[in-house]
């Protein structure tokens, strides 16, 4: 009986690039012994979660137009269950960061990220969000959103084609499938978070540690940066 696999319905496993690390991780998970009942329940929950990711589209510039193409008839992302774009972070699972983030916008993005409920994900869509892109020399551009919030999936391109976006979303679906739902970090109580302003750094480290256990790399990036 196989538990914890990285297969998703929409695309064959062999068609993904860089599968080795996921395969090795699955092997390691199984070898270390999993409780079948819990793991099966976990698989079921993750199957549901990975097929109905609700994104908050943080569209600031050009990439947002390509995202609109993705939403329209030709690419039609509702085939994959991500069409429920929410305008409030409190209803969303994922921030899709479409477009350059500048100094003035950075605290706004950070606030929206903090308002997302756990488990939460971030997708950096386009070169600007990955590392400043063509605006590397600018005085007002944040050189990659990972300076502000942690990122799960990077989709390169300037702007990326809608197809690239679909690939990125599938990588995220695989990542969600591999996670241990019962061990995911829980959202701290809002009042508690306010009191412990100074503890945010510790929390971020803890979060990093947990995700480090999950052992992701390459395209599915580790959560890094943490709370700034």
């Amino acid at each position, binding site marked *: 009986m196989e538990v914890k696999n990285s297969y998703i319905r929409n695309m064959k496993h062999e068609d993904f690039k860089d599968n080795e690390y996921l395969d090795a991780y699955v092997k390691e998970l199984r070898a270390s012994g999993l409780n079948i009942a819990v793991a099966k329940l976990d698989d079921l929950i993750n199957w549901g979660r990975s097929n109905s990711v609700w994104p908050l589209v943080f*569209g*600031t510039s050009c990439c947002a*137009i390509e995202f609109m*193409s993705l939403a*329209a008839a030709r690419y039609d992302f509702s085939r994959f269950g991500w069409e429920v774009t929410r305008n409030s972070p409190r209803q969303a699972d994922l921030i899709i960061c479409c477009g350059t983030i*500048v100094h003035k916008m950075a*605290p*706004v993005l950070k606030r929206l990220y903090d308002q997302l409920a756990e488990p939460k994900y971030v997708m950096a869509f386009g070169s600007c969000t990955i590392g400043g892109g063509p605006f590397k*020399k*600018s005085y007002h551009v944040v050189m990659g959103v990972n300076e502000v919030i942690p990122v799960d999936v990077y989709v390169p391109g300037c702007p990326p084609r809608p197809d690239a976006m679909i690939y990125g979303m599938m990588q995220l679906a695989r990542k969600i499938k591999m996670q241990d739902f019962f061990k995911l970090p829980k959202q701290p109580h809002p009042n508690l978070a306010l009191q412990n302003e100074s503890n945010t750094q510790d929390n971020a480290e803890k979060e990093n540690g947990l995700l480090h256990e999950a052992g992701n790399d390459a395209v599915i990036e580790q959560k890094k940066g943490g709370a700034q």
Partner: protein
Amino acid sequence: MKVIADLAAQLPGATVEQQGNTFLVAVPKEKLHDAASMLRHNSKLQFDYLNDIIGLDNGDTLGVIYVLVATQFSAYTIRLKTETDDRENPEIDTVVDLWDSADLYEREVYDFFGIRFVNNPDMRRLFLRQDWVGYPLRKDYDADPELNPIPHEAEDLDKMEDLPSLEIDLNGARLEKHRQLFEKEDYVVNFGPQHPSTHGALHLRIALEGEIVKKVDPNFGYIHRGIEKMCEADTYPQILHLIDRMDYLSATIHRHGFCLAVEKGLQLETPERAHYIRTIIDELTRIASHLLGWGCMCNDMGAITAFIYGMRDREKIMDIFEQTCGGRLMANYSVIGGVMADIHPDFQKKVRAFVPYMRKMLKEHHILFTGNPIARGRMEGVGYLSKEKAISLGATGPTGRASGWSNDVRKIAPYAAYRHAEFAEMLRTDGLTFDRYVIRLDEIEESLKIIEQLVDNIPGGAYAAKTKAIIKLPEGEFHQRVEGSHGEFDVYINSRGEKYPYRVKFRSPCMTLVNTLKHIAVGTKVADLIMLGGSLDYVIPCIDR
């Protein structure tokens, strides 16, 4: 133009020089307001359209250039220049009492150069945070990231509401004043910067009285990327890709404008074939942009079907772009001297097939939405913009034309292959939301006509002129106007004879459109505000640059 030459000669303390269709007028800064006022209220010829205000750092002095156009003779421009040698506390008289559009332009110059405009009641920074250190477009700006680190907290709203100003009254007394943006009892709502209907990262602060909008204060800079500063450190071919990313919906048109300005400076003969190809690509871009604008406006009103239909037709254009240019949204096609590569063998066939398809779909769009009684009920009688106001605000493009202002640069100062095509300038007179809506669909029809006439007559020959490996522009100023899909886009290049420009300024058509929203939204219902924004069809990264 004798009238303009006479007028310019009468200006107090002015030196006049003519360069083609442009009159360069330099006045001392004490006489600036008098000169501007004379041009604005002259009985013979009124310079009623302030096209742009350009700040300039000349090294030892700080200058300001006012680009003025008389709508009677739109092909001619006056560039009114003045400068101040005080770099510590530069002060220049405001012209905000003469032109409504001067408001945001002066704030922009203050933000970038630190020039304070005397008697302008609102001298906040426009793009950067109020606590930003330094003025980035000055040549001696210190770009040390330590000075301006990434902020942790969003900007304090109280700071945004405090309007500092420097006023000199009739007796010559200097007064440092602080006004409040809103009254104490105002009910203020934040709209944006993250909101699906702001068409980008725009932040509006709206004072409401019940459901009625009392005051709108746009807040820019959430996508300010410092493109103009970056241009100063880039060679001319390197700048091209930055222009695509400003107004991504009319990317090829704006890029075309920059190429034309550089070619003007180099006195480079662009092959006729390149002109034709560029024009067709520009018109395709215009159609794509209008389709998206139309779809988004309908989406803002609650008709998602229209959005899906608009995007569907737009994909056809994206396919043509992808085949010929290699890119979908960022076509990256025009280069200095021509185009990047020759057209794809299937280009003409595909464009020819697209024209009747789009005509058929346009009819469907009209049936689907224009005739819809609910849509008409919402759009008619809302958001009136008079012709005079449109000119004073500098609301160019379809918005101005819906108010009856004939401002199409393709007609006024034809460039590229527009002189070979017959087309009408779409004009409406009512200036309501419905007119701004219909005029976009009408312009798609006109663009199709242009494409139809040009696509079969693309001349043979080279697709690009040969340029030197390192392009150096001769010393001087070069100005080019083109008609973008949202309005008039201008490129101003100040060259000192090097391979990098000394100063590049882009006139953003969308900035005046947001300024227009500020004026026409007052008195409407808050639900209509979204639709008004949709009807003006602005793109925020174009404003913020």
